[in-house]
């Protein structure tokens, strides 16, 4: 078990390192650099040249990368070229918001997608068809668009904030703080969760159909076992395996997908920071945001592995 944990940790660290390195190199290779914005604001060419030299942007990208690697080896993600602040501090200010939104969306997607998938996979008639059609419709709407639609809904009804997050007043109590958080979280969570709920529903429906066709289930049905018992007691666990297998990727893409939703809904997570990093060519901040995104993916993969192992004894034996 220790060897397994070490393997997973090494995998996670390698993933984070590779993704953040790729983020830095790709942004560094894109045309322009962080001082381009200064040109548009009328800063003199002499000041811009000195700023480029001070930031080390006049050196080859490989040299900049090597210097960054040196800092990373000391657990320092570098200093944002745009904000002139440690990348670590900037990430720390926002990562909690992204994690909260991602976790809420994951819970909601699972809570909607799994039961609907079981329902659609185990029933006949108009209900599964409606569920399937709804899922396909939802899947075809990108979270960016659904976030805009929800913003429009909020603006027209006033039921929810159109965007942003305003914390509860100090001393308001945990219940008021929690309900305030839920009120602000509702629309971005829905925008992010619905496509994933649809994905889970489709997978779970197919897996349920497949599981219900297994010989032992057919035999049990032949012996007169009730449909509900067959579905929820005997076919659910094996049918969960495909969903558990992709859960890690769902978690990773959910967090990276949250960047677009965060941008539209004004959720103060990593999304806006990543956008700023990319548009301003802030190579160190882009690397940091990429590292955070890959960290979510790595954690998701571990969670997925644990879930799979708990569902499948053969995998437990392999990992030990």
């Amino acid at each position, binding site marked *: 078990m220790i060897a397994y944990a070490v393997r997973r940790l090494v995998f996670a660290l390698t993933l984070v390192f590779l993704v953040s390195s790729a983020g830095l190199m790709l942004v560094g290779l894109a*045309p322009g650099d962080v001082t381009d914005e*200064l040109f548009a604001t*009328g800063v003199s060419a002499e000041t811009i040249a000195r700023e480029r030299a001070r930031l080390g942007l006049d050196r080859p990208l490989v040299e900049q990368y090597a210097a960054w690697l040196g800092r990373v080896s000391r657990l320092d993600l570098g200093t944002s070229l745009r904000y*002139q602040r440690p990348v670590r501090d900037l990430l720390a200010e926002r990562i909690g918001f992204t994690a909260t939104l991602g976790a809420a969306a994951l819970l909601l997607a699972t809570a909607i997608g799994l039961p609907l998938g079981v329902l659609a996979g185990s029933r006949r008639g108009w209900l599964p068809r409606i569920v399937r059609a709804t899922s396909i419709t939802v899947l075809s709407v990108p979270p960016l668009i659904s976030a805009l639609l929800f*913003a429009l809904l909020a*603006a027209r009804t006033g039921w929810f904030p159109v965007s942003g997050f305003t914390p509860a007043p100090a001393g308001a109590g945990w219940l008021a703080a929690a309900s305030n958080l839920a009120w602000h979280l509702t629309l971005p969570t829905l925008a992010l969760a619905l496509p994933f709920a649809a994905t889970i529903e489709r997978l779970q429906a197919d897996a349920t159909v497949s599981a219900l066709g297994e010989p032992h289930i057919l035999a049990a049905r032949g012996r007169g076992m009730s449909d509900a018992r067959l579905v929820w007691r005997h076919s659910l666990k094996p049918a969960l395996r495909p969903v558990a297998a992709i859960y890690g990727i769902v978690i990773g893409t959910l967090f990276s997908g949250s960047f677009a939703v965060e941008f539209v809904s*004004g959720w103060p997570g990593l999304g806006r920071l990543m956008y700023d990093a990319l*548009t301003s060519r802030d190579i160190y901040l882009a690397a940091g945001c990429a590292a955070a995104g890959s960290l979510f993916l790595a954690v998701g993969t571990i969670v997925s592995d644990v879930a799979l192992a708990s569902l499948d004894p053969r995998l437990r034996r392999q990992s030990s």
Partner: protein
Amino acid sequence: MAAGSLVLDGPDRPGTPPAAPARGGELVASYRSEPVSFNRHLASRAADDLFSRLTQGRLVRRHRITNEIEPRLAESWALADDGLTYTLALRRNVRFSDGEPFTSADVLFSFRAVYDDATNSQLAGELKIGGAPLDVSAPDDHTVVIRFPSPFGPGLRILDGLPILPRHKLEAALDEGRLREMWGTSTPPSELAGLGPFVLAEYTPGQRLVFARNQNFWARDAAGVQLPYLDRLVVETVPEQNVEMLRLESGQLDLTTDEARPEDVAAFRRAAEAGRLQLVDVGIAIDPNLMWINLRPDLKASDSKRAWLQSEDFRRAISHAVDRDVFVNTVYLGAAEPIFGPVTPSYGIWYTPDLPVYAFDRTRAGSLLNGLGLADATGDGVLEDRSAAPVRFSLITQKGNNVRERSAAVIQDQLRQVGIVVDVVGLDQGAVFQRFSTGDYDAIFFGVDITDPDPALMAEFWLSSGAFHFWNPGQATPATEWEARIDDLMRRHVTSLDLDERRDLFAEAQRILAEHVPVLYFAAPHVYVAVSPRVANATPAVTKPQVLWNAEVLAVKGGG
């Protein structure tokens, strides 16, 4: 510069000061980005400038409606007979937000910070004249003497950009070469001090800046009421512009810090008619988008292509070929005016109406193109040059900027009708700058923000040596005779202290530019500003920040 016409009428319309402004209350504004630093020397973006203007004072300010400079921390000034030396009398009994007194030592300190090599202030360029710094001295606590290195027409208006910083807070850092490290966005608000109308009360990254009234702000209104009127001003970060507009329309915002987009104007007009918004047509923008063709001698193109692409008649033909009414209606949905040069009517005294123009005339465009040896020999509707190559060039524009993308599409369509093929290339801003700075392009459609219409402050555009002389920047010696003439006129314009003479010199420079059309202008949009019905006392301007430039007089209708 005219204040512009108002869409709405009535006693409470923006631009009309209320009879009795009420003190108190809070307004919520939005910004699509947030400051990258609280230290203006390190940050020049619009959000940084707004932060600085709300929290820090200036010696003088350019009034965004009258365009005159008005007293701020300097209550009066006089220019000596040498035409170089200004003596400024500072306002007395002024205190920073933390209670420390403001004196001439703070002004000296602020200039030191600008010119400090270790700081490499982003304000340094605009506070130098011909590359030389201003000489600043202080004979006493309430007098500052500023000597310009050479006569400078705009005079003290360049001080509009200089924040006066608290020496008592920052001098040690400047002495140690650490000013760059000061006042990043993680600095606790209690460590900041300023002379602006507001103080930062709270900053939540990615969410909002909350400004509270500066209890020590020096300004009072005509009735003796201390400004600002507002208790608090909240600036929410709303990155997505569609969402920003929804929030404004639904009453969750009182104002935005950008003008309305053309596509939002109709909806805002309906909201204004329903009493949910106030919408103001402030006037015509002073910074219209422009198109230029690469006239650098190192243009990467075949000799035959260079011959027509860089010729003056080709640019004249383009100007003749584009129907500006179509441009106005397609790009700005009618909310713009056709133009032929960079100086729009909002430039006030600098606007010259009777310049030569190459107006829409496809027949004339065809004649000019034929004169360049460009003809449709194959009958496919596309012109060919003398080497039988099609007349085709690429036009780079900024991807994601709807107005620029639509503009490029209209130009492409209009030029297609005279047989010119335009390949529109959308690139992000950084890539556009890179292509421009390396000269690796045929033509670009772009725009830059202009904050002050005084032409002397845009010398980098007019002078052949300038970085913003887009078509052929940074020339060691003028490449053409007409550029040499503009250089001469603009140098005299910049150094003249006689306003009439400056206006005449600039009119002549405009005339030469209009004749040789190195840059092509098609339309200048009307600047529309929308604010909620709660906002009183707004006097929007055509330049950014349209409403918050005089945030100290904004008020909530009926008070807080």
